[in-house]
């Protein structure tokens, strides 16, 4: 218990040092409220005007979470669940356009690493990277049990899972801070291609 709390605190420190935002729901009943206020805080800060469209997928333990119910009241947010439909190209292209015009991606996570403040996402039949890619805001719902002490531990976990699955996921992404660059005159700028703002809602 104390250990998970220590890991959560370490993760939070690292993630915030990178410029990310961390919110905490101490139990599953509080999650909807915490998520709603996290969402509100982030959109108000980073996208003060305009319509809001969310594309999301959630980890299995949250499959009952009613995202539309939670976020629908905030500035008329539309929620779209990913993935759906067929895997044909035409459908995929439509998805791409839809993702490109959305403002917020909400995803679960495979694991997180406390020592580096990283979050790992896998592509799998029910989880993916696209909703974390194109939108200006990315919010991750992270079960605190998924926080590993270090990125090596997380990678070990990925390896063990792949052994039982028979293969690695085709794509894996570790997110360690927002998209940034120092390519112009060496000055740091946040938000080049990926999200400008990332937030994690840790829940128990």
């Amino acid at each position: 218990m104390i250990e998970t709390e220590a890991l959560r605190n370490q993760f939070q420190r690292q993630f915030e040092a990178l410029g990310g935002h961390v919110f905490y729901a101490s139990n599953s009943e509080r999650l909807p409220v915490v998520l709603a206020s996290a969402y509100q805080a982030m959109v108000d800060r980073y996208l003060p005007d305009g319509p809001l469209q969310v594309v999301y997928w959630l980890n299995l333990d949250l499959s009952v979470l009613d995202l539309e119910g939670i976020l629908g009241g905030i500035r008329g947010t539309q929620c779209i669940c990913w993935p759906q439909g067929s895997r044909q190209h035409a459908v995929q292209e439509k998805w791409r356009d839809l993702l490109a015009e959305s403002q917020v991606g909400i995803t679960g996570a495979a694991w997180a690493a406390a020592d580096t403040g990283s979050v790992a996402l896998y592509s799998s039949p029910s989880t993916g990277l696209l909703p974390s890619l194109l939108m200006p805001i990315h919010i991750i719902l992270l079960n605190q049990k998924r926080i590993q002490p270090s990125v090596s531990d997380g990678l070990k976990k990925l390896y063990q899972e792949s052994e039982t699955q028979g293969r690695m996921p085709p794509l894996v992404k570790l997110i360690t801070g927002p998209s940034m660059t120092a390519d112009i005159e060496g000055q740091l700028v946040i938000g080049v291609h990926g999200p400008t703002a990332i937030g994690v809602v840790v829940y128990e």
Partner: protein
Amino acid sequence: MAGQLPIDSRPWPVRRDQALQDKTMQQTIQFVTRRVANAKVAAYTAYPEGERLRQRAVGVKRRSVENMEEHLAVFAQQVEAHGGQVHRAKTAADAIRTVLEVAKNHGVQRVIKTKSMVTEELELNRAFESVGIAVRETDLGEYIIQLAHEKPSHILAPAAHKNRAQIEALFDQDAAAYHTEPPASDDILALTQYARRRLREEFLAADMGVTGGNFLVAETGTLVLITNEGNADMVTTLPPILVSVVGVEKIVADWPGLTEVIQQPALSGVGQRLSSYTTMVSGTRGTDQWEGPDEWHVVLLDNGRTLLKDTPFEDVLSCIRCGACLNVCPVFRQVGGHAYGSVYPGPIGIVETPLLTNFEVLPELPSVLCTLCHACGEACPMDIDLPGHIVQLRKIKRDRHMDAAGVTRSYRWWARFWATPHGYRRSIRWARWGQRWFVRHGRIQSAPGLAGGWFNTRDMPPVASPTFHEWWERTRGKGHRS
């Protein structure tokens, strides 16, 4: 077989003078290199495990390179078992042929790229354009220099030689060509936002993605890409066809090995524990997946690399392209990357350029762009003996009679005198006698023959009368003070 590297064929004095006159470049390079060199030191200080990790990473890279061929075979097997295809390219020309063939087979029209030194090595963009395929660099710095038709000036900060006004002008031109709104101002944020908007269109329209690679994991057939901007994620996730061109030396034997090396490029390169995005590709999308390329080709490039195997220079193949050696090099900080004339600048470039090409191009690098201060040797996280190699390369050059005859003669003459105390004293006496014609305002301002070049930009104090040695001899040497 020796590799092929594109070079700037202008002679060194021309490249040098151009660099020394470019104040924008000098200012930015000095700012950037200092900032990241300091960030690296701070990152290690704040991360006690960092040093232990680094040492383990050196071991992993060395062992992986030792049995490179074996691991590459396993890698190929794994990639092919997961839907990808692996191509071996002996030379740059082979690699280009392979990539263009893949593009042609699919009728590719638009390519998007992540930053990759290897594709610079191939001049892949030029190859694409020569067959009418549009190619777009998506790393912000690379995008800027692509618009300017220039080469990277730093392996991690390719556009470090451009200031915001120059970049705004480039973006304005680009906006006019693509009928889109130009950047709002020359503010750095506005420029970045313009690039985000413009490149977004290119990401969504591309039919093929091209990446380099930071690591290849043999055991799992995984390609690892490290970026801060997030462009590698776009390139690996959006287009249906993915081509990754990677040097053979990037191979790591197994997954535990990867976990030991994965933090090194960011830790030593920019002083972060990990870069913002680490992307791992381990195969094609397959029938049950939503994401991942439909087709994945990995081109394993040799281009002179295996020449270094089983030589005293083998450790060079452990280079992770972190740029730490560039950032601490006093010469690089003055002249920037272009002056080297090679795609690989800085201390590692000095060593690799002649080695990969068997001294066919830019053999002058080890002699003219190094002061042997050893800063690079201390900075290199992979413990590559850069200063030692530079000395060896100078020696090889001399043994192969590659130095200009005048230079060799002068050094031989000099060495003959300074090899003995007696010869040294004699040379000093002669210099004192001869210097009278070259002293102005109490300093030696010029010299005859080859030595004259040394005084182009500096002067030196004249030989004293008496010298310390002479004074010592006269006073202490005879056992009394005067």
